[in-house]
């Protein structure tokens, strides 16, 4: 229900059908009044005509002539009119209309119908010269019946229209929502990282299809720009490696010639600097290689639990030297489909972060376990962690948090982890109430 209330498509469809039903209702009311007025006019004309028709009888033959003519008309029953003639003292002397004497002119009167009891009627009361009063009345029953019929018809029409409108709104709103949901779905897929998703375009080429087609063209363009950017980045890294390699080789030759002293130290340092830049380029190239996705062909089952145990054993002494502890929690075997070295590199980057950005005395726990068709590898520590609002950002390229600026690194460590995770269709999660845990959720190998 809430989705219906919050959906613009449903709201629009409901508004249109409600407006349509209201218009019908208005039309009904207008017709009701017009028909009522016309019928009432016709009724008045009939009364007027009957009254005028009696006048010659009265003029020619006086009261008796009038009485005779009235009795004649009532007896014939040719019209649906009722008649009454009152003496000046108010006594009814002719006609069957059972009512007390009314005032002269056009009146609404009430008379006693022998069958139906008291009944309203429209009456013209004419004062005759010798103070007699002639009453010609028409029962309002037929008029009321027409009113009821018109009201009833339009009432039903209104209800049916409301129902049709409601049903139509649900169908129409649902259709709009479905069309939009398809676009939204694709957009969400793209937001989640699958840049290859495109909107489906129907055969009708309606406005939804045209929007979808425009979005697809836009997405193609964005994708090609991103690909271009990646290509330029990796080309740049690649092209700069050669001259940098030459520089490094020259420095190395120089290293062999300068034996000791401050000059040697400077040369050594220059070689290290060159190596740092080369490593940065390597990381960029590795990320773009991962982005290409061609590595999947070489994936094989990897025992993540075993790998975590190995990495734990390898890094425990490093933690110890830094005044921290590193424990391992990975029993048995848990297979994932992947590249052992890439996964190792990702986990080493995570361990290295835990070692580098925590104070002495920090306890680090690394582990892996298989659960519900997934294999989770995690690195946990009781250090300061990454602030919640920064967590998504640290996975971006070249992002370094303010606190980490003082430590060495180029800000590609976690983006390499992300590229590796993406290549393995693994999800990265970060959590931690007291301490911090970053985990990679791999789909378990089907071979397992």
């Amino acid at each position, binding site marked *: 229900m809430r989705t219906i209330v919050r959906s613009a498509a449903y709201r629009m469809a409901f508004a249109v059908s409600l407006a349509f039903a209201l218009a019908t209702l208005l039309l009904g009311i207008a017709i009701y009044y017009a028909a009522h007025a016309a019928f009432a006019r016709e009724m008045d004309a009939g009364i007027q005509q009957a009254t005028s028709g009696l006048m010659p009888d009265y003029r020619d033959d006086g009261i008796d002539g009038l009485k005779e003519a009235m009795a004649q008309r009532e007896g014939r029953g040719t019209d649906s009119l009722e008649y009454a003639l009152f003496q000046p003292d108010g006594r009814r002397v002719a006609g069957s209309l059972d009512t007390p004497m009314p005032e002269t002119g056009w009146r609404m009167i009430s008379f006693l119908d022998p069958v139906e009891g008291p009944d309203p009627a429209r009456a013209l009361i004419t004062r005759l010269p010798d103070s007699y009063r002639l009453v010609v009345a028409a029962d309002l029953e037929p008029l009321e019946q027409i009113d009821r019929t018109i009201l009833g018809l339009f009432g039903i029409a209104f209800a049916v229209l409301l129902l049709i409108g409601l049903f139509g709104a649900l169908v129409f709103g649902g259709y709009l929502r479905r069309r939009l949901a398809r676009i939204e779905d694709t957009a969400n897929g793209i937001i989640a990282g699958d840049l290859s998703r495109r909107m489906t375009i129907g055969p009708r080429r309606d406005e939804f299809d045209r929007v979808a087609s425009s979005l697809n063209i836009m997405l193609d363009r964005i994708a090609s720009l991103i690909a271009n950017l990646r290509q330029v980045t990796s080309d740049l890294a690649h092209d700069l490696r050669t001259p940098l390699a030459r520089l490094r080789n020259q420095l190395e030759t120089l290293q062999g010639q300068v034996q000791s002293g401050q000059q040697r130290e400077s040369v050594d340092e220059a070689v290290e600097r060159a190596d740092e830049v080369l490593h940065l380029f390597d990381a960029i190239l590795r990320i773009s290689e991962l982005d290409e996705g061609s590595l999947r062909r070489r994936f094989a089952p990897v025992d993540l639990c075993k790998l975590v145990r190995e990495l734990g054993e390898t890094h425990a*002494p490093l933690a110890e030297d830094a005044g921290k502890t590193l424990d391992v929690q990975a029993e048995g075997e848990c297979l994932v489909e992947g590249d052992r070295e890439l996964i190792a590199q990702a986990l080493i980057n995570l361990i*290295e972060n835990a070692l580098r950005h925590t104070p002495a005395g920090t306890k680090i726990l690394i582990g892996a376990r298989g659960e519900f068709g997934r294999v989770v590898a995690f690195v946990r520590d009781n250090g300061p962690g990454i602030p919640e609002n920064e967590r998504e950002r640290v996975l971006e390229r070249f992002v370094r948090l303010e606190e980490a600026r003082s430590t060495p690194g180029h800000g590609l460590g976690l983006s390499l982890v992300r590229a590796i995770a993406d290549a393995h269709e693994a999800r990265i999660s970060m959590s931690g109430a007291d301490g911090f845990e970053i985990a990679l959720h791999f789909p378990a190998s089907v071979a397992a």
Partner: protein
Amino acid sequence: MRILIAEDDADTAGFVERGLGELGHNVTVVDKGTDALHLALAEAFDLLIFDRMLPGLDGLSVVRRLRTADVAAPVLLLTALGKIEDRVEGLDAGADDYLVKPFAFSELAARVNALSRRPPPQTTVTRLFAVGIEMNLLSREVRRDGKIIPLQPREFQLLEELLRHAGEFVTRTMLLERVWDFHFDPQTKIVETHISRLRSKLNEGGLPDPIETVRGVGYRIPAE
């Protein structure tokens, strides 16, 4: 040692030729894949160093053809591409080792040494000795001057690698590849830390340090 280098980048070729020449090797340089193939088929070389990308015929195809023609000389492939796929392809084609440009000359020299002294695969060694250290590969026992030294598995593997190449430099990269099976640089001090642990266990009681370290080159245990 007779070494054939096929490299189209004159700068790298010169750098390698000069360095290997200084080490006393007899170096021939060509810059085309077809020349490399013809020379390697016609003459006997102890080691072939090919760039992966060569004009005419690429390094990978040259290696494949040489292997089909039963040329068994060890091949070291050089590449400007650091791609994971390239290394696997190179080794599949029949190359013995693989080096990503740019490399330190010491790295190349260490690998050239290791390739040229690669023992025939049929001989199985069960004991390794050097400077008073004795390693039994079957019982996985290490003694220094007769005294048993308990080592962690990684430390044992490190020492084994150094002892197998006693007298030669083993680089940090080579240790990462052979002890950890990592063909990437994890950018951490795992090699340094584990060597330092190994060292302190070997030297316990004030014994002289058997592991020589040369910064930027690698580690070496002297041969007997």
